[in-house]
Every structure is written in structure tokens, then in C-alpha cells.
């Protein structure tokens, strides 16, 4: 593939976040990435920390004491919230990226109906379910404990 010689003009990582007037699905893509990275970062730390259970009660309780501060608890809630969004949106993407819920090829008549319009109800459902899970999680984390 020829790399052309004009003035470079790729948006770069800015193109993942912003750089234009984009639609909501574009921001869902960005949020899916951000939550994925956040979950991965937490996951690696989580694996290392929870190995302490193999060393008995004292080791376990000490490692849990390290992460019992309010900042950590709030961080864990963010992980729960990130999971709620990433999982529900991910499920929507599994269906959409295998061609379900995006419509059939049609004769384009203006104003054009795109796959995004057919996805809209699923997108709204995703956000509602994710938001509900986040609210329930918040209650369980901070109120009902």
C-alpha cells in the first residue's frame, strides 16, 4: 500500500475520542474501550491480590484490609459500573457484529435509514439496563451494607 506524500492529516488517537460532530454510537465505542482498559487494569491487580487466599485466613484478611479504605471501595464501585456497561454493551455488539438487529440490505431512499437507526432501540435498552445495574450496585455498595 502506497503511503502518499502529502501533509500528514490522520486524526490519530483524537479520532477515537472526538475530532468531529459524532453520533452517540461513536461515543459508545469510546466508552466500551475505556471501560475495557479499566477492567483489564483492575483484573491484573485483582488476580495478584486474591492469591493471598491460598495462604490462609491471616494473609487473606490482611490483603482485604489493604483495600478497605473509602477510595478503594469507590474504585471497586467504578469497576462494577464499568463491568455493567461493558457487559451489556458487549452483548449488544455480539449480536450486531454477527449481523443481527442491523437490518437487511435495502434500496436507499432519502432520508436514509441506516443500521444505526435499527440498532437505536437496542442501544437505548443497553443504556437503561446498564444504568439500572449501576444504580442497584450503588445501593448495594453504599447503602445496604
Amino acid at each position: 500500500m502506497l503511503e502518499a506524500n502529502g501533509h500528514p492529516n490522520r486524526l490519530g488517537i483524537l479520532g477515537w475520542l472526538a475530532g468531529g460532530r459524532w453520533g452517540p454510537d461513536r461515543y459508545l465505542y469510546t466508552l466500551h474501550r475505556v471501560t475495557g482498559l479499566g477492567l483489564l487494569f483492575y483484573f491484573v491487580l485483582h488476580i495478584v491480590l486474591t492469591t493471598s487466599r491460598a495462604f490462609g485466613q491471616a494473609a487473606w484478611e490482611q490483603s482485604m484490609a489493604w483495600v478497605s479504605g473509602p477510595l478503594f471501595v469507590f474504585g471497586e464501585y467504578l469497576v462494577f459500573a464499568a463491568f455493567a456497561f461493558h457487559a451489556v454493551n458487549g452483548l449488544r455488539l455480539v449480536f450486531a457484529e454477527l449481523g443481527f438487529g442491523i437490518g437487511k440490505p435495502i434500496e436507499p431512499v432519502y432520508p436514509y435509514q441506516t443500521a444505526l437507526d435499527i440498532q437505536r432501540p437496542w442501544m437505548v435498552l443497553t443504556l437503561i439496563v446498564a444504568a439500572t445495574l449501576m444504580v442497584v450496585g450503588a445501593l448495594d455498595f453504599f447503602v445496604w451494607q
Partner: protein
Amino acid sequence: MSDTRIPDKIIFRIRRYAPGRDGNPTWGEYPVAYESGMTVLDGLWQIKERVDPTLAWRASCRMGICGSCGMFINGRPQLGCNTQISELGSTVVTVAPLPNFPIIRDLVPDLRSMFDAHTALSPYIVREQDEEQVRPTAEYYQSAKEMERYLQFSYCIKCACCVAACPTCATDPRYSGPMALTQAHRYNTDTRDDGFENRLETLSGEAGPWRCHFAGECSRVCPKGVDPGKAIQLMKREMVLDLVGLRKQTTPATPVEKPEGIERRPGIPAAPPPTV
């Protein structure tokens, strides 16, 4: 949609760049005397005629069919000829060259990377070179239903707005981009084509649809309603089915048989001899 408060002065903020003269692109501001019904392209012509003759851009048909005038207008890749100034809702019209392509000059992007990706996916009917291909005797049979599977994707005018809008194309030059993938899907689902295996080599790797994450921006900006986002997800389904061996193999369409035992009605002359 009529705009009762027609502003008399519109400012065009245009990204300027001339190789050899400028190190980096700069912004220039130009006044445009607005008349009802003016498109962004009309504004550019007015600037070139009255203000700055050195302004450069691509345009041809001025009616949304040639695909030349793709530009980044007020933060959205669209055709200059298809964009009414009044629909932008602002007295400042910001025009920049399509992002994700190197700039040749002013508003002219270098689209070679997109066309190279397109060529690499064999965007034409690929089938065995038999006698029928060399000396055609009849048309290939295709039902209306079979045509509907790809017709929408054949409306592409190669304007590059989808590639400019794609977040993956913002960083990854190895990804084929929405246009090339949609055209590959258009031919893969054409019953006259037998090139799926041929394209599989390229499509199963980095150049394939795997870096698409369905941000859907390509479909939103397409000026012809081609819906490349839909084509790419359908392509992923085809390829996953192929991976697990469940893809339906449709034999390439055969030539239409001439009807047998039908008499020509009296008074209708015979067809002239074939010249091909």
C-alpha cells in the same frame, strides 16, 4: 426547510496549505455573500471568483453523484455540493480537507491509500475464465431477490467520507476502511461472483473487518445511503460462518437458457447477428 432569518454575510473558515510554501496548514477567513439555496461548494466558487483565486478543491458534477467534493464541513465529513449553508445553523462555515488522508493542497486529500485498499480486495466479478467469459452468449441469471442482497452497496460513489469518519482509520493504515470492505462484500454477495476464496486471504487478516467496532459513523455520514457499517457487520457474519464451515456456497450464476420450443410471433423481425 425555509430559513426566514437569512444572514447576509457568511464567513468561511478554510484550512489552507500549499506544499513548498507552508510548513503546516493554517486557517484563512473569507466572507461570502449568502443567497438562499447556496451550498458550501457554491460558497467556495464565490470565494475563488471574488476573493482568493489560489483556493484549491476537487469538484465536478455539483449534484452528489461523482464523489469528488468530500470535505470536513463543520466537524462532519460530507459532500460540499450536498450541504446547504442554511442547514449548518451557523454563520461560520468551517471547511477542512477530509481527515485521515494526507493533504496535497488546501482542501485536496490524497486518496491513494483508500483506492489501494480497494484494489487489493478485487472489486470486480471474479470467476473462472471460461468460454462464456471470453465469448459471451447470454446474460447471467440473477433474480431480483439476489440483486437486493448487494444493490444498496453498489451505490457507493467513492467519496471517502466514510473513511474520514472511521475511528479505526484515524490511527490504523493497515485497516482497509469502510469503502473497500463494503465493495468487497458487494462482490462477495453477488451471485455472479466466485471470488470469496480469492478475497479471503486479505480479509482474514489485519486488512479485514476485524478492526471495525461498529461506531457506525461511516453509515451516518454516507451521502448515498450505502450503509457501510451494515455491510461490514454482514461481512463478519459471512466470515464467521465460513470459519465454522456453515457458509452457504452459491455456485456462480450460470447464463440464462434460451427458451425452447417457442415460435416467434408473425410480423416480428429476427434479431441482428451478434457483433461481439
